[in-house]
């Protein structure tokens, strides 16, 4: 069809040839040139008509109509710049915001992980539901079993650690991931420089080769191109750098720390410094990732794995008591990386989508108002023979033009503010560096724009199709043609807008209340004027070179640090603990899991085999810790000088622990121990009240505090109380720590209030965004109802004039107008409440302290919305009562 299309010129010249031939024939019959020409034209008939018919049969009229509509639409938009600006801006903000959130959703949730054949990548998680332990880690023999199972191409445990990198100007804390040598082969990534580990390397102990991240390469080594084979010292051990990973390579970790790895070290997980024959039940490998054999689905792999687990349980009944219910779970690796942000992201996308929808409804209303102003134009065009369909497509084209312009503008805003917006996102969001405006995002923006154009353009277009000619042309002299039908549509639109806004505002209200409740919870400890500084003791591969080998050796260091820190200006109290003892430290709470697995223990007096090992929070602290944090002692005693390395181990537990494991008994003097074979019994010496040290949202998590002089600790937190300048004090602490041991890194200075606040950062982020969206929605709804009521008042000026002339009270007029607005607002609120009930139930997971149907929030928000509606109606209502009957009637 394409090639056969004839040009109009070709057709025209054919007709010219025809007429010429006819003239010549007539001339041969003896007519004069003039007569012949006239006769030829006469017999041919209407040339224009023939051409028109050729045109309509031969080409795509809709294409020309389309272009015509676009040109006409652009002209119309130019003619009313105010309206165009408002409409384009509304859509631009809506599309910009929606696309921004979508780009994050796309990067985090939609796109597969950036490794080859990502569908084969899984995370392996060991659960002991009988012990209440999820993700309890695995033991090296279990890892070997999985390797040999034939289910996986590769399996690699990952063990997060922080190390002291020395050799550069300042000892630095680096994030290290200890992996199996097959780790990089498993992920299918290659270094940008050098080589990866040999996947089949089975050297016992730590391999003395490391790969470093692009970031560390540039920061610590100035991007040295001859970095390969250079040595770095980590925890006093020398490692050879064999490769540099490319920029933008992120480890597939669950938390930020674990994703921003700087050094990868490999080990076979047995042989010094690890045991040569690690026991089966010592789950010291916190977590593992694997690549399935090609062609194996996760479900198929899982069922084979279940078989393997069952046979292992039969083979080693002592290691796997049935009560613990050991299971090994496979999940897509992506779930591990982004699983816990899915709900928040979907909430944000939903919220922003609602805002866009509300914006569209608002525009539909504006367009309807304009359509009635253009009613005369439409009526005249209809009268002149424009097809109904053509008029509708004309209006729809105008709407689409608006929405596309808005979309383009919105994308422009997004491009312009991208860097700024990304800084607002909490960096705990996974795959943040993958957020780009790619073609999927652009396509989304395009579809969203087109869809909004159709949504807000449909009502006006349908109305234009229904114009009643006689009525419209007659009415046109009065400048308005708002039919009853149209007024009804506008009211429906306002009600919709109110309903949508109410849903969004209730969502925001619930989040706000959750957040406020979280801020106001009784912490159970006092974070005021407390700050923390972190350091870390080395953990050399060769134990004989370790100057902090025993708790007693560490104790000397701890005492020296406490003494020195206590003399710093402004410091009133000092305590030490492992980093797990920092209350509410979000990253480190998870870090404990990814670096140590969970603390499994058993109680004395229970048969070891049948007993369920249990999991609790555990930290090691100095005796000063409790007083410094304002945690009182309920019963028993706190730690004292006598609790030294060789003395029997003691513990301070919280009430939740006592109640969970010795219900109805006196827990003082009771004993428990870690499930690790060689660990000693620990006696409960004291009981303290519950404090929200694990999470603001959880009031009573069982907790064990051990004496750090007995347990030792590598990752240390120095807690200081007093009137302190955080930065200056941190610098002083660094000086003091490094004057004791210059190889130790000092980092992470933060006030405890900051830590508490940071633990809410993700909640705060989604709450703020949703609240912002809700405010926008409220504003749009207010504008919407204002527009409708104003329009109604201006339409009824005449009627109001008559009423006033006949003696109506202005008060009554005011009441009449307000009642109209109130009716719309109440109807909208009623519909919205139903919607909100559905939405709030979906939100239950992100709420704290409030029920999803919290009556106070529901009622409060509904009243707020109605209040805003009344305010928005009051302005046009005032105008109504100021109508001068004389003017209104003369206007007629």
């Amino acid at each position: 069809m394409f090639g056969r299309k004839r040009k109009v010129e070709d057709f025209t010249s054919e007709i010219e040839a025809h007429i010429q031939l006819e003239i010549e024939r007539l001339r041969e019959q003896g007519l004069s040139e003039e007569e012949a020409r006239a006769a030829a034209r006469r017999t041919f008939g209407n040339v224009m008509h023939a051409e028109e018919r050729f045109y309509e049969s031969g080409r795509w009229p809709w294409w020309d109509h389309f272009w015509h509509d676009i040109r006409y639409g652009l002209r119309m938009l130019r003619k009313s710049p105010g309206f165009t600006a408002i409409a384009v801006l509304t859509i631009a903000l809506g599309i910009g915001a929606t696309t921004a959130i979508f780009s994050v959703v796309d990067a985090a949730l939609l796109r597969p992980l950036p490794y080859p054949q990502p569908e084969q990548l899984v995370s392996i998680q060991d659960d002991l539901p009988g012990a209440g332990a999820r993700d309890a880690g695995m033991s090296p023999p279990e890892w070997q079993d999985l390797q040999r199972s034939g289910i996986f191409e590769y399996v690699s445990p990952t063990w997060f650690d922080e190390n002291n990198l020395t050799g550069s100007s300042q000892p630095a804390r680096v994030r290290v991931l200890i992996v199996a040598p097959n780790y990089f082969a498993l992920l299918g990534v290659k270094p940008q420089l050098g080589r990866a580990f040999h996947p089949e390397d089975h050297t016992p102990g730590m391999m003395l080769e490391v790969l470093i991240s692009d970031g560390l390469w540039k920061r610590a080594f100035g991007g040295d191109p001859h970095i390969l084979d250079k040595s770095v010292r980590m925890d006093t051990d020398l490692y050879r750098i064999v490769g540099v990973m490319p920029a933008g390579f992120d480890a597939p970790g669950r938390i930020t720390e674990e994703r921003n790895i700087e050094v990868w070290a490999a080990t076979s997980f047995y042989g010094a410094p690890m045991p040569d024959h690690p026991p089966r039940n010592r789950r010291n490998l916190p977590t593992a990732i694997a690549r399935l054999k090609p062609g194996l689905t996760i479900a198929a792999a899982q069922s084979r794995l279940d078989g393997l687990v069952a046979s292992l349980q039969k083979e080693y009944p002592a290691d796997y008591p049935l009560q613990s219910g050991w299971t090994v779970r496979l999940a897509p690796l992506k779930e591990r990386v982004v699983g816990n942000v899915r709900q928040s992201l979907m909430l944000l996308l939903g919220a922003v989508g609602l805002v866009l929808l509300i914006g569209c409804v608002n525009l539909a209303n504006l367009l309807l108002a304009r359509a009635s102003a253009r009613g005369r134009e439409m009526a005249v065009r209809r009268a002149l023979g424009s097809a109904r369909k053509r008029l509708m497509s004309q209006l729809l084209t105008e709407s689409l033009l608006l929405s596309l312009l808005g979309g383009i503008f919105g994308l422009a805003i997004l491009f312009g503010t991208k860097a700024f917006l990304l800084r607002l996102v909490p960096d705990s969001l996974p795959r943040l560096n993958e957020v780009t405006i790619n073609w999927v995002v652009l396509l989304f923006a395009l579809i969203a724009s087109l869809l909004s154009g159709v949504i807000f353009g449909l009502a006006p277009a349908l109305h234009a199709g229904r114009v009643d000619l006689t009525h419209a042309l007659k009415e046109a002299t009065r400048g308005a043609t708002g039919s009853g039908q149209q007024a009804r549509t506008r009211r429906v639109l306002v009600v919709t807008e109110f309903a949508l806004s109410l849903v969004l505002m209730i969502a925001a209200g619930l989040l706000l209340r959750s957040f406020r409740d979280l801020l106001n919870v009784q912490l159970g400890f006092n974070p005021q004027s407390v700050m923390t500084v972190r350091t870390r003791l080395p953990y050399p591969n060769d134990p004989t070179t370790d100057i902090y080998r025993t708790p007693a050796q560490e104790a000397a260091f701890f005492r020296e640090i406490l003494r020195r820190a206590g003399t710093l200006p402004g410091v009133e109290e000092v305590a030490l603990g492992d980093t797990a003892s920092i209350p509410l430290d979000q990253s480190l709470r998870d870090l404990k899991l990814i670096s140590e697995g969970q603390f499994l223990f058993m109680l004395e007096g229970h048969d070891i085999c049948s007993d369920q090992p249990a999991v609790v929070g555990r930290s090691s602290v100095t005796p000063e810790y409790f007083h410094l944090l304002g945690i009182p002692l309920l019963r028993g005693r706190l730690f004292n000088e006598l609790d030294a390395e060789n003395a029997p181990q003691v513990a301070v537990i919280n009430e939740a622990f006592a109640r969970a494991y010795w219900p109805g008994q006196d827990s003082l003097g009771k004993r428990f121990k870690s499930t690790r074979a060689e660990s000693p019994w620990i006696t409960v010496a004291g009981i303290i009240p519950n404090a929200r040290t694990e999470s603001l949202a959880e009031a009573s998590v069982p907790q064990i505090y051990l004496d750090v002089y007995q347990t030792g600790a590598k990752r240390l937190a120095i807690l200081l109380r007093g009137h302190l300048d955080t930065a200056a004090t941190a610098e002083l602490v660094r000086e003091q720590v490094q004057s004791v041991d210059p190889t130790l890194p000092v980092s992470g200075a933060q006030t405890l209030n900051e830590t508490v606040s940071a633990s809410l950062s993700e909640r705060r982020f989604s709450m703020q965004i949703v609240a912002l969206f809700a405010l926008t929605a409220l504003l749009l709804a207010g504008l919407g109802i204002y527009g409708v009521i104003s329009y109604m008042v201006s339409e009824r000026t005449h009627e109001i004039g008559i009423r006033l002339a006949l003696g109506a009270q202005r008060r009554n007029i005011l009441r009449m107008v307000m009642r109209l607005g109130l009716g719309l607002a109440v109807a909208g609120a009623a519909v919205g409440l139903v919607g909100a009930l559905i939405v709030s139930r979906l939100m239950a997971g992100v709420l704290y302290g409030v029920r999803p149907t919290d009556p106070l929030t529901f009622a409060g928000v509904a009243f707020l919305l109605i209040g805003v509606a009344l305010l928005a109606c009051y302005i046009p209502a005032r105008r109504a009562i100021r109508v001068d009957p004389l003017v209104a009637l003369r206007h007629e």
Partner: protein
Amino acid sequence: MSTQDNRERLELLQGTLDLLILRTLIFGSQHGQGIARAIQETSEKELLVEHGALYPALQRLEERGWISAKWGISSNNRKARFYALTAAGRKQLVRETTKWKRLAKAIARIIGPESAEG
């Protein structure tokens, strides 16, 4: 649009123009003006063919593939677009002719010989 001297001529029935064009082309390719003339003269000037109306019909037939067209030189040395019958067009002509004859016969039977004269 028709002129006075054409008044007594017959207007073409809907759909018959296609048939006449195809029929005319059976004697070989011809340009638009030639077709128009041929129809008028063969019908002994009984039929009124507005030349302009011919072209949409030609366009339509060409699109259906019943006739083909190319530019050529007329007998008096003028450039003109010549139309020729295609194989499909020939078949169509047979179909249309049969249909037309049946129709004409049927109508003639209803109207009867007497009224035809009146």
